[in-house]
């Protein structure tokens, strides 16, 4: 119950930092010609200014929300609205966090998790992208394998972690492999969908200009599928993080997830919450980095 109140701050952060997370893929693909000649052609500069304005607003709102929640938790904890074991006062947690940051143990765990997450994101995205490309280029493969990927989506792949441990052992590799697969699936599906929904006229244009296969891929197909690929990227990052932390939680000998469970088991409540804050900060950082990547990749698309 308490745990769920803190993560909700993080999820709000992620949704407010980019305006329309639910349907960015369709803005670019569906822009059919509008009827009237003078309907909407605002000069580009003011709208860019407004874009930064909304970004500033959401950053401000997020900060205000975090401050408000922290203040609430502090007051509630001091006033004895709930037991200290449920949620210690943020001031206590942050003090503990300050101590942690000076400890070698903490940095070993953070490094381990960081490497695992980063490796799963990179490998997962590359693998998923390659698979999506293949499904598009060879529609037969897509028809055969896509249904399995879609149903795999619904399977909590963490279930296979014991199998992976038997195969690879309890180490970073087994976590990376499974988290990579978890990240690759949404990336592959999104890439394939993005490429397949590309307006046929783009390929007609490519044919009429006799573009090389390379030009067709890099100058037309990949940018055309851009919004879908970015959506896949976002899911891949989230899945890599969830997968890594969850598997560390289950069985591992180091990592942030492992440490949280360990502290939970030895009743070190304050230390546990300090680590939870670290994971939340990590997920916020990833979200911010994603938003920046998105801004660069999708410039001009969000009308």
């Amino acid at each position, binding site marked *: 119950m308490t745990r769920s109140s803190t993560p909700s701050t993080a999820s709000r952060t992620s949704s407010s930092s980019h305006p329309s997370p639910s349907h960015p893929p369709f803005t*670019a693909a569906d*822009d059919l010609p509008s009827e009237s*000649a003078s309907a909407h052609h605002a000069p580009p500069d003011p709208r860019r200014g407004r874009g930064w304005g909304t970004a500033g607003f959401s950053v401000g709102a997020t900060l205000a929300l975090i401050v408000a929640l922290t203040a609430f938790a502090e007051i509630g904890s001091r006033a004895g609205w709930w037991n200290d074991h449920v949620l210690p006062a943020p001031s206590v947690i942050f003090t503990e966090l300050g101590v942690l940051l000076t400890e070698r143990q903490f940095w070993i765990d953070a490094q381990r998790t960081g490497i695992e997450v980063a490796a799963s994101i990179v490998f997962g995205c590359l693998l998923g992208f390659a698979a999506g490309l293949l499904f598009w280029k060879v529609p037969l493969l897509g028809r055969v394998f896509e249904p399995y990927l879609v149903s795999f989506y619904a399977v909590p792949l963490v279930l296979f972690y014991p199998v992976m441990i038997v195969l690879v052992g309890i180490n970073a590799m087994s976590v990376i492999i499974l988290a990579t697969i978890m990240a690759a699936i949404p990336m592959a599906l999104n890439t394939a969908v993005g490429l397949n929904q590309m307006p*046929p006229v783009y390929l007609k244009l490519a044919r*009429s*200009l006799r573009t090389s296969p390379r030009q067709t891929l890099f*100058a037309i197909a990949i940018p055309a599928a851009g919004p879908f690929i970015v959506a896949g990227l976002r899911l891949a990052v989230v899945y890599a993080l969830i997968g890594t932390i969850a598997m560390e939680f289950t069985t591992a000998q180091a990592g942030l997830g492992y440490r949280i469970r360990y502290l939970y088991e030895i009743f070190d409540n304050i230390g546990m919450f300090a680590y939870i804050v670290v994971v939340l900060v990590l997920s916020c950082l990833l979200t911010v980095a994603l938003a920046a990547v998105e801004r660069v990749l*999708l410039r001009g698309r969000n009308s």
Partner: protein
Amino acid sequence: MDPQGIEMTGLSVVFDTAARRVTAVTDIDQIVPHSSFVSIVGPSGCGKSTLLAVVAGLQKATTGAVSVAGRPVTGPDPKIGVVFQEDSTLPWRTVEENVAFAMEMIGTPKPERRKRTKDAIELVGLAGFEKSYPSQLSGGMRQRVALARTLAVQPEVVLMDEPFAALDQQTRLFLGAEVRQIWARTKQTIMFVTHDISEAILLSQQVWVMSYRPGTIIDVVDIDLPGERDAGVVSTPRFNELHNRIWGSLQAESMRGFQQQEASST
């Protein structure tokens, strides 16, 4: 014989599908002279677009041959510019990047590309919108971008496949008049497909009327309206005469097409 224009000899296209054979286009023997503006009108489903695709090299002819500027067409060629019916602007590129796109693909050197991009944007009246993205433009403006992209390549001929079909009537007439002016300045050979008789008359020097499937040219009408025309020409008596003549040839074909489609759909 004019070696610079478009020449079609004994052209026909037959589509073999599992269900049946459809002759889309048959017996086309026509010439589009150099620097002239020819429109093709016909009922929907008559194969106008197929004919255009064959001239563009995007579709293989079953029999016959096409040559552009004296060379036989064997496949797509950047020298044959095509403006599509659908919105073909690329949403991730600005107007100027869109216009430069075709030149980038065929490897036009950069300084030349920059100059031609600027000229083409001015020609289609989009100066001031160079940095805008297609999502910030109206449908009519996007088609201008597509037209500028095609013109910037400096093709031998320009083929336009109902480029304004998705636009409203006023925008259409207005853009049509602009295309006409652009043509008057560049003297590019243009083949223009439309189902709108007024548009065809307004734009062209010559209008070909196509029959319903199998499509063939059943009437060739020279448009003897003044060279300098704007959208106001639609209210002149001569325009009406031409309109009536084309409508007369088209009416029977449209009915035939309509009845066939009705029959096949029931």
